[in-house]
């Protein structure tokens, strides 16, 4: 059985992927946080990607495949640390993959890299420019790491590198900003805006990663879920109440709360509940024979309050 290394294994998505592929691979994982009660056949190393010892795992275990999930997507930490983990950490991992002859690499990027802009097409394909930093510089590291991996994909044709860009991921285990937002009792929305949002279930993301490994895909793929609904429908279906507020008030409040460290979301994130950031996921469905198992209704009920 081939060895598979999962970075960020203790996170919600990491655990789901580990469980999903545990029968096909000899799985080991790295994470800064420990995974209490992990299955006994999975080896978990509690370690930081940026530490020198990280390379030892590659030397010792010689993984044939790597799934890279070790990203900081929240804003609770120092932005410099965030950038370092996301960009320098990824760079480090890519170097290891090249040096220790890894055959397959799957990176879980995000559809947010395209940005939510008023003039974006509704169903952006994988060739769309990564525009997120135009209005949302706080997450430019997400676009940077995506591009690092894309460059790696072309530089090492012998490694089957795949970059997946899933849409808003919801579910029981994954902690995401959009999940936390939808779980609120009263959900502030931007007055006069109600964009279409796509959702995908966390289990479908794990399934997509497993399929990618199975098929040995190579390329950049959007991962869209079963469909799109307006934001307010999503809020209603997850059991919340939309509270439309003027944009100025929301942005002002977020800016102040963020600066004071009381709320961990930059004001630029508002764009994602103002304009659609919807992607065309057909390329992945064709290449991997993938079809989302979870319907929108099931996705919403998985996070219903």
């Amino acid at each position, binding site marked *: 059985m081939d060895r598979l290394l999962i970075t960020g294994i203790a996170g919600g998505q990491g655990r789901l992927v580990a469980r999903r592929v545990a029968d096909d691979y000899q799985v080991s994982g790295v994470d800064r946080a420990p995974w209490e009660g992990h299955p006994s056949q999975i080896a978990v190393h509690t370690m930081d990607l940026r530490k020198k010892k990280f390379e030892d795992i590659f030397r010792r275990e010689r993984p044939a495949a790597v799934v890279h999930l070790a990203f900081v997507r929240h804003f609770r930490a120092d932005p410099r640390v965030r950038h370092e983990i996301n960009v320098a950490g990824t760079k480090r991992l890519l170097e290891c993959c090249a040096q220790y002859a890894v055959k397959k690499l799957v990176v879980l990027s995000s559809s947010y890299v395209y940005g939510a802009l*008023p003039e974006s097409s509704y169903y952006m394909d994988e060739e769309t420019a990564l525009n997120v930093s135009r209005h949302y510089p706080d997450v430019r590291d997400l676009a940077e790491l995506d591009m690092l991996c894309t460059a790696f994909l072309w530089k090492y044709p012998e490694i089957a590198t795949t970059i997946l860009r899933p849409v808003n991921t919801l579910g029981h285990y994954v902690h995401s900003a959009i999940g936390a937002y939808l779980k609120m009792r009263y959900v502030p929305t931007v007055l006069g805006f109600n964009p279409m949002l796509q959702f995908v279930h966390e289990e479908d993301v794990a399934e997509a990663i497993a399929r990618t490994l199975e098929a040995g895909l190579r390329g950049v793929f959007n991962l869209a879920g079963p469909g799109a609904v307006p934001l307010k429908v999503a809020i209603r279906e997850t059991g919340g109440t939309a509270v439309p507020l003027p944009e100025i008030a929301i942005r002002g409040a977020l800016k102040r709360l963020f600066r004071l460290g009381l709320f961990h979301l930059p004001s630029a994130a508002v764009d994602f509940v103002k304009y659609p950031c919807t992607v065309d996921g057909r390329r992945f469905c064709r290449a991997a024979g993938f079809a989302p198992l979870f*319907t929108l209704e099931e996705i919403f009920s998985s996070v219903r309050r």
Partner: protein
Amino acid sequence: MATTIRNRTQRSERGTARGGAARRVRRLPRPAGAAFGPTLTLDGGEPYGSDTPAHSLETLSSVAGGILESLAPRFLRDLNHEIRGRLAASPIELNAYGYDPWGFNPDVARRVLLISALLYRYYFRVQTHGIENLPDGRMLVIGNHAGQIAIDALMIGTATVLEADPPRVLRGMGEYWLPTVPFVNVLMARTGGVVGTPRNCIEILEHEEAVIAFPEGVRGMTKPFRQRYQLQEFGYGFMRLALQTGTPIVPVAVVGSEEQAPSLGNFMPLARLLGMPAFPLVVTPFPYPVRYHISFGEPMDFRGNPNDEDDAIGKKVARVRARIHEMLQAGLRRRRSIFL
């Protein structure tokens, strides 16, 4: 109470009609677990009931809407019913929540159409010719643009819903700044509009839907009264998209729009100051009740390389422009009065 019963009966009748084989909208089954609370409204409001406070508020507002609607005159209720039926018969795919992939929603579209249908029937008293020329599947409806505000687009869109068989919802291609305008962006999406990027247009055509475009753009819409019924220069973008997607072009000529709000000229300095494409000097506070004549021509098929140089594309565009010009002249000859 009597109204309640009547409303419920109508509701169930519609229910059976909808289930018939003639129904072309592919609607997924409603999500499991959603309660089908009977509501009093004719329009149904939100499709699912629930018992959270927000939902009881919604129920309350839909009850209020139902009472208002039962007070409405009979012709209005009939018109509402007719539009609902026609929208349900249009070949648009909706998801389980009643939205298409671009955010079109028949409930919202119906409300807008109710107003535009009143204008269509009783204010502009539109006469539509050649609606049977609309092909099945994808099409690009290309028309002349005039009258300072885009009532012509609204009337063409209303005609294809009210008169065509099957009814067609025309998808408008909006300017890039429209999505930034509060409320307008939502209304645009719910009634079938999208931002006018080439990719959006291609996707929608490949979905076998109908797109409407005015290649004259603002040049046509804001031209002064003395240039009425003189077609301005056409943009070439629509032809490249038609060639790329193999879409037939349906030429449409609108007679009447030019007289709805005559403009004496264009005050460019003020337009530049306000950041607007034009500032027409209009003397009327509201559009005159001119009579509209809309004629749909036979579909035109074009073959060729969508990336051809402008000269080659221009020749094809000129054929469409000439066709619309002919149809306009014929319409003007046929018209006996501007208002009657």
